[in-house]
């Protein structure tokens, strides 16, 4: 993402981006950026993996507590959030599609939709979290929900807050990144020769979606 800035074109026509001095050509630069992003996404996958490991182990140890605790979650809200995130992933993919066609206005539209849906996701999560705070369904020693006192219930909520919290953190980062790329699109920078920033931002967003695709059934559908 660093060296692919283009100057705003004359009469709205985007220019070819600059190639950094150490790269052999623009194609190499783009390939490097893409490969670098995939490697970064691999690190994010491994980061969430640790939480999945903890989840798997505790679910094995406390199957009933986990199943009952999972029923306490609002499945409608969770399903809505999943559909929202998938749609936001779709709009992000469309943004890349339009960027290749130099339709910068559609890129802006798509990313704005993506960011709005992400915001919607966070709003729903806020409602879910506040419900849990209200019911004292909290991690570890703060757990005080009288409706489920089996051992393992507090572990479930610890894992719930840790994984959805880390995920929400990544949603926020994704929104910031996409916002930045949207600003560039507003300056009409993208075209067939230069859409790397859109692609990388979109890839990050797809990862956020990918993690949620696994988190959702693991937490809500036990």
């Amino acid at each position: 993402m660093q060296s692919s800035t283009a100057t705003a074109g004359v009469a709205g026509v985007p220019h070819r981006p600059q190639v950094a001095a150490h790269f052999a050509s623009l194609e190499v630069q783009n390939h490097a950026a893409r490969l670098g992003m995939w490697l970064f996404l691999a690190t994010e996958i491994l980061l969430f993996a640790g939480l999945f490991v903890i989840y798997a182990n505790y679910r094995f140890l406390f199957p009933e507590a986990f199943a009952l605790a999972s029923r306490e979650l609002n499945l409608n809200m969770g399903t809505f959030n999943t559909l929202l995130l998938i749609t936001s992933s779709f709009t992000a993919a469309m943004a890349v599609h339009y960027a290749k066609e130099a339709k910068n206005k559609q890129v802006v539209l798509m990313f704005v939709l993506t960011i709005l849906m992400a915001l919607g996701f966070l709003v729903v999560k806020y409602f879910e979290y506040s419900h849990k705070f209200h019911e004292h369904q909290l991690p570890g020693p703060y757990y005080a929900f009288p409706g489920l006192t089996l051992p393992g219930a507090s572990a479930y909520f610890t894992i719930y807050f840790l994984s959805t919290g880390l995920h929400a953190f990544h949603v926020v980062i994704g929104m910031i990144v996409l916002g930045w790329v949207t600003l560039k699109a507003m300056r009409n920078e993208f075209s067939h020769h230069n859409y790397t920033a859109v692609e990388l931002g979109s890839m990050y967003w797809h990862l956020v979606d990918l993690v949620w695709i696994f988190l959702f059934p693991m937490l809500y559908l036990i």
Partner: protein
Amino acid sequence: MSAMANESFKEDREMRQEHHSGPGKYIAVWGALMVLTLVTVFTGKMHIETGALALALVIASVKGALVALYFMHLAEHQGASRVVFITSMLFVVLMLLFTLFDIGTRFRPALPNAATPQEWPVETRGQSGRYGGGLKAPGTNPK
């Protein structure tokens, strides 16, 4: 253009060939993802006796594969990106597998004491103590 690694050339050729079809493909994938989400919610709510977890994981994997292959263009870009993604998935599975092996085959009293895992025979020589370990039920240790 001469000083370019072979991989970048290949990647660039793929990118040019990658035909810039309309949005139809993305809409189809999006539709499939939405449908699969509803399928997983529906089957999840049924609380199937056996195989619920496996089914949920399979559906999630299919959804994930669709996102990776089509939204993230892995179906088109061969080479290092695919290796990176698949390798990371393999290592996640590795971590899960070996920790689950441990917790599944551990001597039951060594698990957290309030745990109620599924019962299955956990008999390994070390635990039954043929060569002097002698651990049996509490209070019956021969030594």
